[in-house]
Structure formats: C-alpha cells, structure tokens
C-alpha cells in the first residue's frame, strides 16, 4: 500500500469511540458531552480534557474497539477522500453524477454535493428513484454527448437494481462511468444490514456485461483506476465500466492531510483501432467494382463525424445505405437512404459492407419458425464486416449473436476510425470507366428513395382518423409541431413502426438516439431524460415517445424530470398492453389451438386503465390525456411543447394502436 493509501494497517490505532485521539486532533467540539475519566482533568480553557499524569490511565472497559479497524469518529477534518475523487471525476470532464442515495457511498455523494457542485468546474448531482434509472439516464446522455456521465449505486442491492440497465448499455456499446460503494473492511460494517449489503467481490455480479472493473485499495489507486475506467469506457467498442469504491476511502480524511493528496493521473488522447491497410484496400477494390454494392450501418456512428463520413463514402460510390436504427448513422432524407428497401437491395447485391452490425448474421439471413436460415443474399456475393465488438469478446451472455458463416472478410476494428482510410482508398481506386455507371446507379436509387416516401405517405392514410390513434397520425402530428425547432428524438422508433424514418427529415447527429441495446424494458423513459439533459445546454427541443409498459417499470423518473427541471416532452404510446408479448402470446395459444380469447389475462394493461396524466401531475410534471381522438392531439402537443420550451418536462398520454 502506498503512503497515501487508506489501507487499514496504516490507520492509527484509535478506539471506535476514540475520544482521546479525537481530543488530540482538536476535534472534540464535534463530540457531544464527552465523559471525563478519572485520569483526566477538565481543561479550564474550555478545550479538550487533559490527561492527569499522576493518575493511572483507565483500562478500556471492553475490548470492542480493539476488535475492529479503528475509525476517527467524532473528528472533523479538512480534507477527505471524497473531495479528491470529485477532482478526479472533474479531470475526466464528467459533468453529472446520478444516484439514488445509499450509505456505502455517502462519502463521495456528500463531496459531490458540498464540494463538486459548489466549486468550478461545477458538477451537478441528480437524484433518481431507482438505480436502473441512473444508468439509463447516463446511457441516454452518452448517446447525445458522446462521453460518459457518472452514476453511483449503493453496494449489492443498488448494483443489483442497476444491473439490467447496465446490460442494456453494454449491448448498446455505450460508455458509462459507474461506481458502487463497498465496505471492504468487514469489522467496519454495521450489524445486520451492513453485512446484508456487502459482498466479497461486488462487481462480480455484473462483470459479464461491463467492460472493466476494479476495487481500488487506496486513493492513489482510485485515481489511476478512475482514469483507466474512463479510458476503457471510451475506447471502441465503448462500454460501461465499474469501480467498487471503499466507503472508508471516500469518507475518511486523506492520510497525511492535503499535503499528501495524491496526484490526478493524466488521461492520454485515445486513438481507436482502425482497420488493417491491406484489408481496407481490398474492401475498397470490391466496392468500386461492384454493380450493386450495399452499405449497412449498425452501431456505426459514435461521433458527429461518423454520419458525415458515411455520406462521403456512400456518395463516392453512389451506394445505398441501410440503417440498423441503432444510431443516427445517415440522413433519413438523403437519396441514398434506402433502409425500407433493404431486403430488395440485399437480394440483388454483389457486395455488402456491414459497419458495426449488431447482428451480422441477421443482416444476411432470415429465420423461419423452426430456426432454419434463409439466405437473403446471393451465395456469390461478397460480404465484409468492420466491427470492433469482436475485439473484446466475453463468454456468457450471448450478445455476440449467431455466427455469421457467410462473410468473406471480417475487419476487426472500429468502423468509424477505419472510414477515412476507406474513403481515401475508394477515391483512389475508382476507375474513370466506372463513373458513368455509378452516376446512373445513384439516379436510380434517388428515384427509388422518392418512390419509397410516396409509398409511405400513401400507406399513412389508412386509419388516419382512427381511435385508438394510428402511428402515422401520431408521428405526423408530432412532426408538425417540431419541424421548425432544433429537435432531438430521444427514444427508439421501433414501436412506432419506424414511421419517423419513413416520413421525417433528420440530418443532424443528435436527431435520434436509437434503442436500448438489449431490449430490456424500462430503458426508454430514463434514457430519454438523460439525453434531454445533454440536449438542455445546447437549447434543443427533446421529444420522446415511450411505451406505457416501459414507463411503468420506473415512473419515478417523472419526478426526477420535474425535480431536476429537465425540459423533455414525453408522449406515452399507450396501447394498454405489453404489445409485443400480446402478439407472441397469440402465436403460442394458436399453435396449441386454444384461441386468443384469454390473452388479455396475461398481457393487457387494463382493468383499470392507468391515468398517466394524473400520475405525471402527482409527480410534478405538466400533463394532458388520455387523448384518444386524433383531432385533439395536435393542440395538446402544441401546449405541451410550450411548457417544454420554458424549461420544464411535460407528458401527453396518447391512446394509440399497437404499433
């Protein structure tokens, strides 16, 4: 252990009630009614009692204090481990700290509130009502801001609460700086609950789906591991990291005082892994010579440059781009945006380049009811992937997806970091003889793009005046209200059947944040709030469409939205059920030939219906609804957006069709 460490062996041997030592440190003012022993005399100056050398020192009445590592309880001090930790977090440019309070991290939490929030550069402490909400907020924040925010959990039970949200972030390759408290010295735990809330290896429970973890043994160790955690988190593939931070390390003073404050380790600039030159040249050669190349973008764009570079590549090739909807990869109204034609395009493609696909197998194969694969591409076509995920494989959770045996070249690298070299190679290798054909291909694709928009508009008219409200109507009404704003859709589009991508114009990296990663329910509402938090300082209008079932996993997030005054429009897509499961339940029941009459028993959210507006109001959020007449929707959205533009959250409950 280093001298700056808080290792228990180096701690002064002071009894648990430590009055004498406390007096020696001049801290008795904080001690209520100290008992003066026979060996002490009262100090006439009003200070601590003085030892009387003429009398024998008292024998400790019980060996209790000797049984445990000591703690200078009752002593005030002017430096503390928590403040140092705050400074380390600030050195990492961490702006926010989200937490549901817990006593194993009070030492750091107090430092964030009373030191970090009051000194520059100011951090902001955010209070959540569930640890899952803290992680999901950090998840959404990172997807807008491109960097981690901090969140911290009580040990064991807090981390257990957080775990599903951590899995979402891990599968979505999102950086989050996480900490959990841990009282490592067993003799310093409270009886009963202190032991129930302790583990020998706290991070073990989420180790399968975090990128890295550590349990620092000293403040210097904390500093180094915090910087390392940030670095690992922000090296592609991004991911959540976790530090289990000893509660005493947070709470106690820096050993030796301020003079012994450990240094803050330097963070180097990170250079992400780019593809090997030969493989990139070969990819470029295949692409420029292809008759029907297709670009597929999964979790590709991780910085604002990502979208810009994919546009450059697609335009250089006049190749269609299909989007996995995980990121804002490509402008939705660019003529080469062809996602809704993906099956058709893959069917005729001779070269596929998949950029950070979340499921490479699923891009090129469909499955039937019995799990049989049906190839979606010609067997003679060439398939290439660029993916950083395979650089950090793990064995338990199956986010790796089914093995894609039909790919010819797997470039194990970060796709965005590889893009500059690939663009350069494509331009360099492009033969003049191909230019006319490529231009013609672009014109064909542009026409197909327009045809697709018109097809979507023609499809949107069906059920236009329906109640429950149709998704085309809902998304069109919302677009009508936000199109003139600097908007940001901070929710997935899956449950609205991707009508936003079909109809809206989106051309900025922050226009859309994609989905949860692992489809763990309860993500949308807190992630939307985290993204809205990131948008707040940029003055953007954040809007989210969240499921009724999803919101009810953690409705306390509405209180956080109101309490923290984060401007965000929540639209509750209230289909009054767990809709995906309704469909699956029907399929199972029908295979057993029992009919679907009783599906509502398992999957509906009714009897009674939930009054989401009433609930939101009780939590301090402006709300309207339930709205089931489509004619009422536009005016309600307009009123709610006016509230959001004033800096407050708002919620509209829309009784809507399944998808």
């Amino acid at each position, binding site marked *: 252990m280093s001298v700056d460490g808080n290792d228990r062996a180096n701690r002064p041997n002071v009894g648990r009630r430590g009055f004498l030592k406390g007096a020696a440190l001049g801290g008795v003012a904080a001690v209520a009614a100290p008992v003066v022993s026979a060996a002490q005399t009262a100090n006439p100056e009003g200070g601590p009692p003085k030892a009387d050398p003429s009398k024998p020192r008292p024998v400790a009445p019980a060996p209790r204090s000797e049984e445990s590592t000591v703690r200078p309880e009752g002593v005030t001090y002017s430096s503390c481990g928590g403040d140092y930790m705050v400074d380390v977090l600030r050195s990492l440019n961490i702006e926010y700290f989200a937490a549901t309070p817990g006593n194993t991290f009070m030492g750091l939490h107090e430092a964030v509130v009373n030191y970090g929030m009051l000194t520059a550069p100011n951090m902001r402490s955010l209070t959540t009502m569930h640890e899952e909400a803290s992680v999901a907020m950090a998840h959404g924040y990172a997807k807008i801001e491109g960097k981690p925010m901090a969140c911290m959990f009580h040990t064991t039970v807090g981390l257990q609460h957080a775990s599903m949200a951590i899995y979402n972030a891990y599968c979505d390759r999102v950086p989050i700086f996480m900490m959990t408290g841990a009282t490592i010295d067993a003799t310093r735990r409270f009886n009963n609950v202190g032991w129930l809330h302790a583990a020998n290896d706290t991070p073990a429970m989420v180790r399968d789906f975090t990128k890295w973890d550590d349990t620092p043994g000293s403040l210097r160790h904390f500093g180094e591991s915090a910087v390392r955690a940030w670095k690992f988190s922000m090296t592609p593939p991004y991911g959540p990291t976790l530090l289990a931070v000893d509660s005493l390390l947070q709470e106690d003073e820096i050993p030796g005082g301020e003079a012994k404050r450990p240094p803050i380790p330097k963070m180097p600039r990170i250079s992400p892994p780019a593809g090997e030159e030969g493989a990139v040249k070969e990819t470029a050669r295949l692409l420029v010579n292809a008759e029907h190349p297709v670009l597929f973008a999964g979790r590709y764009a991780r910085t604002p440059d990502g979208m810009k570079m994919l546009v450059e590549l697609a335009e250089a090739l006049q190749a269609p781009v299909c989007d996995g909807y995980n990121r804002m990869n490509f402008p939705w109204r660019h003529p080469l945006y062809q996602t809704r034609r993906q099956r058709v395009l893959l069917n005729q493609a001779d070269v596929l380049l998949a950029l950070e696909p979340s499921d490479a197998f699923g891009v090129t194969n469909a499955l039937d009811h019995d799990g049989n694969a049906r190839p979606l591409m010609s067997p003679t076509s060439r398939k290439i992937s660029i993916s950083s995920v395979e650089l950090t494989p793990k064995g338990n959770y199956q986010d790796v997806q089914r093995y894609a045996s039909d790919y010819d070249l797997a470039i194990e690298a970060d796709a965005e970091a590889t893009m500059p070299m690939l663009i350069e190679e494509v331009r360099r290798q492009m033969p003049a003889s191909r230019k006319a054909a490529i231009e013609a291909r672009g014109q064909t694709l542009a026409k197909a793009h327009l045809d697709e*928009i018109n097809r979507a508009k023609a499809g949107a008219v069906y059920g236009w005046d329906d109640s429950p409200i149709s998704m085309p109507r809902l998304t069109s009404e919302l677009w009508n209200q936000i199109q003139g704003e600097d908007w940001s859709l901070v929710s997935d589009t899956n449950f609205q059947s991707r009508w936003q991508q079909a109809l809206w114009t989106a051309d900025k990296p922050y226009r859309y944040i994609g989905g949860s990663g692992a489809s763990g329910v309860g993500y949308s509402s807190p992630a939307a709030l985290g993204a809205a938090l990131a948008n707040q300082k940029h003055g953007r209008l954040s809007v989210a469409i969240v499921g009724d079932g999803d919101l009810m996993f953690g409705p306390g997030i509405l209180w956080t939205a109101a309490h923290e005054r984060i401007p965000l429009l929540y639209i509750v897509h209230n289909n009054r059920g767990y809709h995906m499961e309704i469909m699956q339940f029907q399929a199972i029941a029908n295979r057993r*030939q029992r009919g679907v009459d009783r599906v509502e028993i398992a999957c509906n959210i009714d009897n009674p219906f939930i009054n989401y507006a009433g609930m939101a109001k009780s939590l301090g959020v402006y709300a309207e609804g339930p709205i089931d007449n489509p004619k009422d929707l536009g005016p309600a959205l307009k009123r709610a957006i006016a509230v959001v533009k004033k800096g407050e959250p708002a919620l509209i409950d829309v009784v809507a069709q399944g998808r």
Partner: protein
Amino acid sequence: MQRSIILSAALAVLSLTGTAQAQPAAAPAGNVAHGKTLFTSTGCYQCHGYQGQGLGTTGPKLAPTPMPYEAFIRQLRKPRDAMPLYTSKVMSDGDVQDIYAYMLSMPKAKAAADIPLLSRF
C-alpha cells in the same frame, strides 16, 4: 373462435347487412359485420391495425385490397414469417371468409395529398 352461424344463415344475414363488394371471383361470400367483430376478437388488429392497414414490421396491410382469398387462408393455415398459425379449430373457414369480407368492405382511404399533414412530407 367457433363460427356461430351456419353458412345458409349467414347468407340470409348478408342480405340484411350487405355483402362485401367487388370480391375476386374465387372469394366466397362472407358476413362483413361478423368479420369486423372477429377481426378484433381474434386479435388480427394487434399486428395489422384496426382497419387492417398494416403495422410496419409486425403485419402487412390487408385492406382495402387484400391478397387473393386463397393466399389469405393459406397464410392463416400454413403461415410464413411471423404470422401466427390459425387452424380451423380456432378459426373456421367461415370465420376466415367473414374476415376477408370485412377487409374487402373497407372503404378506400383518401389520398395523402388531401391530408394537409401528410402533404407536407
């Protein structure tokens, strides 16, 4: 869902409630009103929307111009992709005919150009 009326009775009812118009030659007649009830009670709307308009990736558009009847009933009895199986035990041929009639009876929607919100896209 068991069909509650026999075909002859259904035909009698159809004379009152109106038979679907413009059916393809091969499509049998069906009871539109009963088909509407079935479309909800048998859960068709969950994936295809209340008007059979289709809900993106969960279910294609069925109305107002559904696929030919033979393909319609084949997709129920031997479904492809994510379509749930509907055997004759849970949905009789008569019920299928009624639902098909309901799909055929759907009025044609107005043009996107006539809807101000859509004309802006």
